[in-house]
């Protein structure tokens, strides 16, 4: 609670001196929690199996790594999770391992995990499905996991701290220079993200104007011709294996403004987990994207 009030005071006094300072301090606080350096007190007897990386990250921050007794291979943050037993992968878990661990609750996400959730229910496990697809839903996820783990007050503090950063970002939007932005979430075939998606929201908060604001689905296939016609000033690549040079060498892309000015952000520049995962670290990703836009 003290930490929360302290941050509020800092917010009011330093807002005019250095707008990013508050965000940085808040992020440090949140990330310290995430790294499990701050001891937490969860409800006794809580044993979580978490099979989604973003939920594992939120659960570790809200209730500490000690309550997590099983994860999937993709759950790689915070680093302390590496000592937790692995029960499978994002889309395929070993039900026998889960049974052996005997968790009190299994946290699952959306997409293919909806089917896993049904299977776990059939076996009598208590499951909770949380699939945050926007920043507002991220706050709700923090609070819900707080309730599940008996750390409601701590979850509320974290959610409030994150909300301050969010509000600050929203206030900065009118002063932001918007760049026409192309988000590439997959290269073969070319796929992008709409404004309704989490990645689209992140880009908007960072100062990007999505060239594909509306798509048939939140993440959908796009025509490379339309990318050239839209002439993006900023390109964000969210999947590994593609370098800036690879984008510059694409036929017909050499005259796109982003390629001419070299304003291309790949996974070598920003860890994609900071952009595509709905976790508190997403604000870190937004700030990094802002820095990238303003530096160039």
């Amino acid at each position: 609670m003290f930490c929360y009030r302290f941050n509020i005071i800092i917010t009011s006094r330093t807002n005019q001196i250095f707008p990013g300072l508050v965000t940085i301090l808040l992020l440090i606080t949140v990330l310290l929690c995430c790294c499990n350096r701050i001891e937490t007190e969860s409800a006794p007897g809580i044993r979580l199996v978490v099979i989604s990386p973003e939920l594992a990250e939120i659960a570790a921050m809200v209730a500490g790594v000690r309550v997590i007794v099983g994860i999937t291979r993709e759950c790689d943050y915070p680093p302390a999770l590496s000592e937790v037993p692995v029960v499978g992968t994002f889309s395929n878990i070993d039900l026998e391992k889960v049974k052996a661990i005997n968790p009190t609750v299994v946290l699952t996400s959306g997409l293919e995990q909806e089917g896993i959730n049904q299977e776990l229910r059939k076996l009598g496990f208590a499951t909770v499905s949380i699939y945050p697809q926007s920043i507002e839903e991220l706050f709700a996820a923090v609070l819900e996991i707080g309730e599940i783990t008996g750390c409601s007050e701590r979850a509320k503090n974290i959610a409030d701290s994150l909300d301050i950063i969010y509000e600050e970002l929203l206030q900065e939007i009118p002063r932001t220079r918007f760049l026409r932005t192309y988000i590439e979430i997959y290269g073969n075939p070319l796929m992008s993200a709409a404004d309704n998606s989490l990645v689209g929201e992140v880009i908007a908060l960072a100062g990007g104007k999505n060239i594909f604001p509306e798509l048939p689905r939140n993440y959908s296939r796009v025509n490379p011709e339309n990318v050239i016609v839209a002439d993006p000033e900023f390109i964000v690549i969210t999947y590994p294996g593609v370098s800036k040079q690879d984008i510059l060498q694409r036929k017909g892309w050499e005259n796109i403004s982003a390629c001419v000015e070299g304003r291309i952000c790949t996974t070598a520049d920003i860890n994609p987990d900071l952009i595509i995962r709905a976790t508190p670290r997403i604000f870190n990703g937004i700030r990094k994207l802002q820095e990238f836009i303003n530096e160039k």
Partner: protein
Amino acid sequence: MKNRYPVFILMGFLLLATVYLYLSFRIASLEVMTSIRFPRFLLTYLTGFLLAGVGYSYQIMLNNPLAEPYILGVSSGAAFGSILASVIGFHLLQPLFGFVGALVAMIMVWKLANLGGYFSSTKLLLSGIILGMFFSALISVIMYFHQRDISTIVSVLMGNLGHVFAVKEWAFFRGFSILSLMLMTFLFTLAEPLRILTTGDLMASSLGVDVRKLRLYVFLSGSLLTGFTVAYAGIIGFVGLIIPHLVRMLIGGERRGNMALAALLGGWFLLICDFIAQHIAVVEIPVGIVTAFIGCPFFIYLLSRNK
């Protein structure tokens, strides 16, 4: 034959109209045309051209009306190579991996077909089918463990003509296209001995055709061409199966020039299918779905007409 000329002239005009529509429909600028639309056109037409030509030659070579370019397992090898490149992070090397996969599969099929010291077209067909199933199983393993790469896997297995070329890759592709056209021309030169082969191995041998060598040439060139198409465009069904039969139904029997006509029609058919795939829905659908939707009813119609 004279009364067929107006039909060929009409088909020529329709082909030109299709090419014009394909290249100019909702085109934004000349730059888009040269850098995106034209490479796609070339890839699409060439893929259809090669698949139909290879399909025609395979059907005669294997003496099997159900034969198609993908039946001898080479396509599965190419698809496996292409998908493997994607899941291990070598996105830009997908065509290269695909082609290497096709080569490996081709060599394995040929070795299997020659096991026991003798060769037969039945052994070749069985070897191809078995190896194709083996590579399909490997693809299934990748699909199972890399479900996040499902977009790439689907685009390879259902066909994707929207390949984005790098500048250097485009130069490479043009060179490769010329090579494949030369190889296809070589296959066209085998049309006459293949026509003789339809009378049976014994009769063809007595007429001076080296049947084993002919099959080897058709298999090798057909496999290389199939590997090339799968490496860039993925697996696009029906073109190599339906178009050869369509030509036989239109012209009647095995005639001189049928293989070349099948290839020309194959390119045309795939252009139409790709155009529909791009524009029928708000988002582009895999072209393999369109070829099946158009190809099946059309084929049934032709079958019912040619009782």
